[in-house]
Structure formats: C-alpha cells, structure tokens
C-alpha cells in the first residue's frame, strides 16, 4: 500500500488547498519549525484513528478536537477537508464540520483505514515518552502492537467483573451481619444453652408446641412464635402488660449505643491515620513517578530516610491494607448504626402498644407516664445519626427502658419467662437468616473466584504469547540497533517480560559486557531514542498489512550526525520495499538523504516558512540546495548571502567527509566548526591530482571544477562574510554569490547519473558517481 497524495483544506495549518504528492515513492519533506510538516502527519493519524489525533486530546481542544483540528482563520463558509489517495486510486475523503464532527467517504477497493496508527505513525515525542515510560506503560503501549490488545482488554474486563460481583453480592456486609447477630443471640441464651441458633429454635418449638408439623427451622420458628403469642394472649391483662414491660426492659439500647460510639471513635481514628499516611505515600509516589530516573532512591514519607522503589511499593501495599481496614471499620460502623436504629424503633413500637399504655396509666409512680409517652412519640432518624441525635435518643428512650427495668424487677416469673422466650426466638431467627444470607453470598464469592481465574488464565496466555513474539521482535530490534550503532559495546538489546510481575514489558541490554535491566541506567538520551526508534521500526517491520507505509515525524532530533546517517542505512536495508514518509526540520539530514537515497524510489520536497494561517502551508517550488537562500534575494540580500554560505558549509562537509579528504589540523573545537573555505581549499589542493572527469573514454583532470571551487571560495570569503557581519551585500552580489556556489557544488554531482562523486567506491578504493563519469582517485 502506498500513499499517492494528501490533499488538505483548512485542516490544522493548511489554508484553502495544499497537496503533498509522493509520486508513489517514499518522500522526505523538509521544513522549518512551524512550516506545517506535522499537519500531514496529523491528517494521516486523523484518518487512521477515525477522527481524532492523539496529541490534540487535551482540555483546550474541544469535544471533537474542533478547536485544534480546524484552521483558526478558516472562512465560515468553508469546511475543513482531508483527502488521501492511494497508489491504486482508492481514496478516503473526510469533511469536518465546524463542530468537529467528521464524515468519512471511501472510494475504491482498498483503504488506508485498515492500518493501525500506532504501527504506522511515529513522532519524536512518542519515542522519548516510550523509553521514559514505566514497565507497565511499555506493556500498555506494546501489547496492542503485539496483537494481544484484545486479550488484555478481556483480562481487565474480567478483573472489573469479579470486583463488581463481590461488591454487588455484599459478601463483607453479610459477614458483619452474622457477627452482629451472633453477638446478640449469645446475649439472650444462657451459658449452658444451645450454641446453634437452629437448635435454640427447635428447643423453643419443643417447649411450646406439642407436635410441630414440620421440623424445618422456619416452620418451627413460626409455630413457636404463634404458641408463645397465644400463651401471652391467654394470660391476664396484667400478665400481658408485664410481658410488654419485660420486652421493653430487655432491649439493650444502652449497650448498642456504647458500642456504636466506640466504633465511631475507632473509625475516626483509623480513618484519620490512614488518610494522613495515604496522602504522604501518594504524594511520594507522585513525586517518584515524576522523577526522570525511577530507579533512584526517594525520601521515605514516614521516616525521611532514603528508600528504594521496592520499599515504596511495600509502603503502597501497606497503605492499601490500611484503607481496607478503614473499609472494614466503615462496614462495622454502618452495622452498629443499623442496630441502634432498629433497637430504638423497637422501643418506640413497644411503648406505643396497648399493654404499655395500661401500665403507664395504672403506674403508682407519676414520673413513668411522661417518660414512656415521650418515648412513644419519639421520631427515630432514618439512615444517619449525629451525636446530638444520638444523645437525645439515648436520653428519651433510655429513660423509658430504665423505668421498664425497674418495674420488671417486681414481675412474677411466668410473664418474664414468656418474654425471654420470645426474645430468644427472635434473635435466633435473625442469626439463622444472617447465616443463610452469608451462605447465599458465599456462592457469589465462588463465582467471583471463578471469574478471577478466567482473568488469571488470560494473563497466562498473554504472558506465553507475548514471550514468544517478543523473542522474535528482539531479534529485529537487535539487528536494527547494530545497523544504527555498528561496533558499539551495547549489545543484545531486547524486549523482556519480567517473571515477577503481570502487565509489564521492559527493555534489557548488555552494556560493555554487563547485563542491564534498563536502558535508562546507562544509555544517553540520544541512544535511548535511537533504541525507541528500533523498537517501533521492529514493530512496523512485522506489520505487513498491505506493506503499510511508515510515517516518521522528526524522529532523529536527538541523534548526532553520524547516527542520523545510519538511519538512512537502516531505512535502505530494512524498508526498501516499503513507502516511508519522512518529515524533518533538519536541513543537513534532508540534504544527506537527497544525496544518498535512490532518486528513483524517493521524492524530496521542502516547505516554505509559515507566514499566515490564511496562506497556510506552502511548498517551495525550488529543489536545489541553495534555493532557500534565493528566497531572501529581494527582501534581504545579506541574509541570502549568509544562507548560501551555510548551505555550502553543510553540503561540502558531507562530500569532503565521504571522500575522506585530510584537512589541516585546527586547534580544539575548531576541528568541528570548519567552514566552506576549509573544504574548498582541500578540494582545490587535492582535486588537482585526484578529481577526474571521463572525456571520450579516458580520464583527465577536472580543471573546470577546480576553477569553480576557487571562484566560490573567493566570493564566500568576501561577500558571504560581509553578509553575515556588515549586512551591506547588494542583491546583485548575493545572486552572483549563489550562482557561483551553485556551480561549485554542481561540479561534485554527475550531470549524467545525478549521483555525487562520493556515491560509490571501486575495488581500487576510488570514489566515483554511479555511471563513472566523475572519479576521485
């Protein structure tokens, strides 16, 4: 698959219309910062991602990225458009409305949209971000590229599902309810009594029911309750009244309130401690993650001493455990709250009964009636309880219970016994129900475990598959690394799946013979980025969907000149059959690419500096090395002269380096800052004997070239230097300078085969152009 052209209209920096034409070849596009190179990359990404560009996803870009996607100076009547045409004529057209909503239309059999953007487009910041990312982040980036993204998505969905099942089934709440019901049950049975709630129910049933119809606990509880109520009905009004007072006296509201207060205080202390500690650890974690070198030690949030990353992980684990304690206490708090409210409700209900009414009306102590009526009228809060409400509840209802306790002390045993039996039956039933509730959710717990096992199986599958694929890709990474860094003592560069953790992929290597677990330990910024480039290209090399194009946006920024040259070798060696779209602001590199890449497979274009959003992206019509200088001829001739000198500096440096010309020694850094004058002098002095041109089948000295070098040197030393210092070069002088420099540079490239004299090396060690007309002996 090859991209033939990209047409943009009012998309990002594009004005009314701009077209990138590749002629179905690979292309190198040069442009200054802001010239609009990345708009073409953004357009490709927009199409591949179905209407979004990843680096534009931020709070300012709008819901559909409309604030960033559309040209800010687009006329209201114009829509933004992208059109990408493939070599087979298939085309994707996108119209983007002012709201950012986009409409895609496809024409033809193939489509660019089947491509995975992450394996097609690489930008400089992504390389850097990838290398600086954690093992987990590398895993997230690489897994989809390894084709295992859907497995990871499934594993994560199952993890969330298990969590949801546990939450929805309320297994921890059920456990707390059983604990609480058991405590209450044990409070109403004697020490010698039954330890099982079901046994207690059966015993009460046997005691009050002569022949139960069914021996299930539910049936026994219902029959026992009916029998006890029947006995209470049969008792005298006085006995019923006494039973009611007994029931009221037995409600352990005071104890429940004390426990509730203790739990509340406990929760407050634990929560406060946990929150403080958690904040400190999270703060340290954030600062640690923001640190460039994550493997370095950091200050411990609790003791201040230096700790390693593993220790921080242990801290985080402890904080999670501490938060789980808070969660358990919160559940206990809610259970005790429910209990207090239930007891309070029971007090109010009993106080409103007719039996209690009879008691308070006939009571000899006049203080009882107002106390019990206040309790009967008390409004119990529904779900929450402030300290003030609790104090009021305790005062009002507690006094009614105290009055009942005092009265019950004088009751005959029969009524007391019936009331106790009813109380025991009620608590036993509550406990059995709570236990059954727990049993029911135990099954849900097993279901959650089953789901977690599915997740574990998927993770194992991911580990197994990724290990195999990563081994293969590591071979490619290693091969590409050796092309970029031949003979360097950094070897066995590879991706690795750590044995000790899920969801992690890292890069390992051998540095001067020593195994290192991370490139961040020793590699320079440039080498790290070079490594990131190798990883991406290895992924792209394995991605064979229609031999997809590879788009590289300014990816060589942090590489030095030597390694940039190696990138050319890498592209030629590994991707000669793929279309590569290169975008760079590095003029030297662009010039080098133009010299050394196959002109029949590559196209080279330059963008003019960006002027206004309305004009948008503009192509330079010129293709020569000195065309950038000519742009300034009319408005700023001194700049034109200066630009010409810079261009000749760059161009000649490459020729002289490739021809291996010895240059006179210069002191210190001047060796690295040689100018066109140094190179021209060398070309003149060595060229007299070595630079030859084939005329009528035999070689002779290329005297025309020597003269051209001399003329260029002379003008560069006068007018170009004047242009950069005194700024008084005239337009005519600058034009003459550019022409002379152009002629001198032209001498080094064959007019027949368009290749430089340094293009090839013969068996004898001579340099020559492709057809051999130019030769450097």
């Amino acid at each position: 698959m090859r991209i033939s052209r990209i047409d943009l209209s009012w998309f990002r920096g594009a004005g009314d219309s701009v077209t990138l034409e590749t002629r179905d070849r690979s292309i190198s596009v040069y442009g200054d910062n802001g010239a609009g190179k990345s708009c073409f990359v953004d357009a490709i990404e927009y199409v591949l991602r179905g209407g979004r560009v990843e680096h534009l996803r931020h709070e300012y870009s709008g819901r559909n990225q409309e604030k960033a996607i559309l040209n800010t100076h687009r006329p209201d009547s114009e829509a933004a458009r992208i059109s990408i045409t493939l070599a087979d004529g298939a085309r994707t057209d996108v119209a983007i409305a002012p709201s950012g909503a986009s409409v895609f239309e496809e024409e033809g059999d193939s489509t660019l949209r089947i491509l995975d953007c992450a394996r097609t487009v690489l930008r400089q910041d992504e390389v850097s971000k990838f290398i600086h990312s954690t093992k987990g982040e590398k895993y997230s980036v690489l897994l989809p590229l390894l084709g295992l993204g859907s497995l990871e998505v499934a594993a994560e969905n199952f993890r969330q599902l298990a969590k949801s099942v546990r939450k929805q089934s309320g297994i921890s709440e059920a456990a707390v309810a059983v604990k609480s019901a058991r405590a209450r049950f044990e409070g109403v049975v004697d020490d010698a009594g039954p330890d099982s709630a079901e046994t207690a129910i059966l015993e009460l049933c046997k005691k009050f029911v002569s022949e139960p119809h069914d021996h299930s606990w539910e049936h026994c509880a219902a029959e026992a309750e009916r029998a006890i109520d029947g006995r209470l009905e049969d008792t005298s009004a006085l006995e019923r009244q006494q039973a009611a007072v007994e029931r009221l006296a037995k409600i352990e509201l005071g104890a429940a309130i004390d426990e509730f207060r203790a739990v509340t205080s406990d929760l407050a202390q634990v929560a406060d401690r946990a929150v403080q500690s958690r904040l400190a650890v999270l703060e340290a974690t954030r600062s640690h993650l923001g640190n460039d070198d994550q493997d370095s030690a950091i200050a411990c949030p609790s003791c201040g001493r230096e700790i390693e990353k593993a220790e921080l992980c242990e801290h985080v684990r402890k904080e999670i455990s501490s938060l789980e304690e808070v969660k358990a206490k919160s559940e206990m708090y809610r259970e005790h709250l429910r209990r207090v409210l239930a007891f309070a409700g029971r007090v109010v209900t009993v106080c409103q009964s007719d039996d209690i009414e009879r008691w308070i009306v006939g009571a000899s102590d006049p203080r009882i009636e107002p106390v019990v009526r206040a309790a009967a009228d008390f409004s119990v809060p529904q779900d929450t309880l402030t300290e003030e409400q609790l104090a009021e509840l305790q005062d009002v209802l507690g006094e009614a219970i105290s009055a009942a306790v005092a009265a019950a002390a004088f009751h005959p045993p029969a009524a007391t016994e019936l009331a106790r039996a009813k109380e025991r039956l009620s608590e036993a039933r509550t406990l059995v129900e709570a236990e059954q509730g727990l049993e029911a959710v135990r099954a849900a717990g097993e279901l959650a475990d089953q789901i977690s096992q599915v997740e574990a199986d998927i993770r194992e599958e991911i580990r197994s598959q990724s290990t195999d694929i990563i081994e293969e890709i590591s071979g490619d990474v290693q091969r590409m690394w050796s092309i970029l860094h031949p003979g360097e003592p950094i070897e066995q560069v590879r991706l690795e799946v750590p044995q000790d953790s899920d969801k992690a992929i890292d890069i390992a290597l051998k540095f001067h013979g020593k195994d290192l677990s991370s490139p961040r330990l020793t590699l320079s910024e440039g080498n790290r980025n070079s490594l990131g480039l190798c990883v991406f290209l290895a992924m792209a090399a394995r991605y064979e969907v229609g031999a997809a194009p590879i788009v590289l946006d300014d990816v060589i920024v942090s590489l030095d000149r030597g390694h940039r040259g190696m990138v050319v070798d890498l592209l030629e060696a590994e991707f000669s059959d793929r279309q590569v779209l290169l975008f760079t602001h590095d003029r030297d590199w662009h010039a080098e690419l133009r010299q050394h890449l196959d002109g029949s497979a590559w196209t080279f274009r330059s963008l003019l500096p960006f002027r206004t959003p309305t004009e948008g992206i503009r192509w330079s019509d010129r293709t020569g090395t000195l065309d950038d200088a000519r742009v300034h001829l009319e408005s700023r001739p001194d700049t034109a002269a200066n630009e010409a000198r810079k261009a000749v500096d760059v161009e000649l440096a490459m020729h002289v380096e490739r021809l291996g010309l010895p240059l006179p020694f210069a002191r210190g850094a001047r060796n690295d800052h040689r100018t066109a004058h140094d190179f021209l002098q060398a070309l003149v002095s060595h060229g007299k004997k070595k630079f030859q041109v084939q005329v009528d089948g035999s070689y002779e000295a290329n005297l025309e070239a020597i003269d051209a070098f001399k003329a260029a040197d002379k003008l560069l030393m006068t007018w170009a230097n004047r242009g950069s210092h005194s700024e008084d070069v005239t337009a005519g002088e600058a034009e003459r300078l550019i022409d002379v420099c152009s002629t001198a540079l032209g001498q080094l490239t064959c007019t027949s085969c368009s290749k430089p004299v340094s293009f090839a090396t013969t068996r004898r060690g001579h340099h020559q152009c492709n057809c051999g007309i130019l030769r450097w002996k």
Partner: protein
Amino acid sequence: MTTDSTSADEDADRAEISITDKLKELRAGRFAEDSLTSGEIDEVAQQLLDMLKAEATHDGVPS
C-alpha cells in the same frame, strides 16, 4: 412440585454450564472487543448473580 433426581441433576448441570458458557461467551466476544464502562460491567455482574440464584433454586436452596 417433585422431580426425580435425574432431571434435578440435569437442571443443576444446565445452570452450571450456563454460567461457564456465559463466561466463555464474554471472553470470546464482548469482553475482548472493548473496555466496558463500570455500568456495563455491573449489568453483566447482575446477570451472573441472577443466574447463580436460579442455580440455587434448582438445587432447592432458597435464594
């Protein structure tokens, strides 16, 4: 209602297979396609819990 032990076992097997099948179906389909929202996950969890209740009813245990 009474059922013979064979058909009760079959019912129980059916319920068990149903949850396992449901998990397999999720793994091969919807769960592998895209990250689900918490609302969607809760909905699936509720379906599974309902299936579990139905299974418990088949076993004669009240839910």
